[in-house]
């Protein structure tokens, strides 16, 4: 039996996972918590073999940060990050943190269970690509890495100068990138661009 810890602040998603566990004879719920900030503590006190964790969890705790810490202190525990957000940076950060598998949320029991099985047998399962989505007239794949970085900061409502300082660029460069992105997406204002980008989940700041 594999002991599974669910880190998910959405009660509906948690219940779904609970049902999958009950249906399966190979997995057993070790616990379900809402915030990633408590995940490591749980691993210290209880027997946990596999963690299924969201990125954006309660108390604004990042599942990716928690995963990195757990992988460092408890390398034997397998971790699957399951997120509903298509933020392209999440997948890269998950790889860097040593997360075993990464999948996008979907309400299909078979897929989730098969990923869990493959992960437990030592395989690392990652999606081939991030989900493609449209931001205005542009496809998410049309954005360059640098543009995405600026877009990510843009969603927090910072000014060009603040963004420039954070990314160690000049305000002029930031304005230039924003202009290019406005042309790509066809939006009229940076606010429109920021709202659309945030809403689509292409960029998420703070996790």
């Amino acid at each position: 039996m594999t002991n599974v810890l669910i880190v998910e602040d959405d009660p509906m998603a948690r219940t779904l996972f609970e049902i999958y566990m009950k249906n399966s004879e190979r997995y057993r719920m070790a616990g379900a918590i809402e915030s990633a900030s408590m995940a490591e503590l749980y691993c210290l006190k209880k027997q946990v073999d596999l963690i299924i964790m969201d990125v954006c969890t309660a108390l604004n705790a990042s599942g990716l940060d928690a995963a990195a810490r757990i992988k460092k202190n408890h390398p034997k525990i397998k971790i699957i990050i399951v997120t509903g957000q298509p933020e392209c940076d999440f997948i890269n950060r998950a790889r860097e943190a040593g997360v075993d598998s990464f999948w996008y949320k979907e309400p299909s029991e078979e897929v989730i269970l098969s990923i869990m099985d493959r992960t437990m047998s030592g395989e690392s399962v990652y999606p081939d690509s991030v989900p493609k989505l449209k931001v205005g007239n542009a496809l998410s794949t049309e954005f360059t890495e640098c543009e995405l970085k600026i877009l990510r900061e843009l969603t927090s409502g910072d000014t060009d100068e603040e963004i420039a300082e954070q990314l160690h660029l000049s305000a002029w460069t930031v304005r230039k990138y924003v202009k290019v992105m406005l042309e790509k997406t066809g939006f009229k204002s940076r606010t429109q661009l920021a709202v659309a980008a945030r809403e689509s989940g292409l960029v998420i700041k703070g996790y």
Partner: protein
Amino acid sequence: MTALYTVHQNIRGILMMLLYFLSLIQIGCLIASFEGKTKYLVKYILPVFLLTFTELIFLRYVNKQIVVYGELPSEKRWNWLFQFPAEAAGLMILIIGIFTFLSLYRILQYYRNSITVSSIKESIDNLPTGLSFSAPNGRILLANRKMEMLSHAVTGMDFQDAEQFWDILYSGRVCKDAERISDGNTPGIRLSDSTIWTFGKKILTVENHTVVQITAADTTELYELSEDLKENNRQLAEMNNRLRQYGENIDSFVRSREVLEAKMRIHNEVGQALLASRSYLLHEAAPLQEADILKRWKYIVALLKKESAPQDFRRTWNYFADAADSAGVKIILEGELPDNEETVKMIVAAAAEALTNAVRHAGADELSIKLYESENKLEITFTNNGRRPAGEITEGGGLEALRLRLEEAGGSMKISARPYFVLNITLPMTAGGKLS
């Protein structure tokens, strides 16, 4: 020669006067055009000497004697000078006369094109801006028409004392038709005709004298533009703020989308369960499926039960307390948790960090949290019942991240390892409020 000699005495007198005036004008030209430049010295002194000589020769013929020097020089070598024909001397006077008038004309041109007291006054009167120069005691040295008009419009008085005028501008005691709209070192005044004037004062040093310069510029358009800009910036800041709030709330939108997807799945489950039940009731299915169908319905009921329960009734604190409880760690809380959700989030982040460290490094199973308020600050102390630390504690990734987060919110963090581990944090009473 003889012809000149017989010239009428009156004509001779007129010629004499002409010569006299010519020489005076020439000397005048010399002085006026001198202007401290040595090249003028050469240019004008030479003609004056020539003029004087030719006059002497001319007079010699007219009066048959030398008027100025009396006796004719006895040496023969000077005689040629006085043997010039009178016509030649007259021609010389004519040339020099023309030259003199040309010089005069040039001097006139020079005065017309160069700066004089009156030309300065005239030109500054035509300036669209107000300008005045005064002594440090306020005595006006020079002021233009615009400044005089502004003085009337702003103070209701003549422009007599620049210092007094500036005091009125600076203190804002302007007359009732005018209104001061900005203060400081460049006061702005709105006049009754709704134009806006910005005044400036500057201390200048001119040839070791202190001169106070007061300027006034029509900034109506500039002011309107800057008001527009202020309004635009305000709207922009508001929009940015809304964007920030939106960013905070978007997660719940995304979550609702996920909930919707999950609901669709439940819907499918219900549909499948109904199909299975129908076939069971119609005796199409094998009896073995009975338990399976019952299991399905049980799950659906469980799902629906969860869904019907309000999702956000749990307070932030419970996320932490429940997780600690289910992990088998005891939390002892002393003091009141603040109402502000952001502050509680911060406390819980620190508590999670303290608890994880206490369990990992000290094998603790109890965390004490003491909260007390002091001077608009909230102080929180975390202690545990684990083993005492063996040495100094180095701040790892978790504690370091926590410190950054606290300091960003205006709080602070302190760790002591002796005699037992204590984590002490302070938070401003309105801490962390990104959503202020």
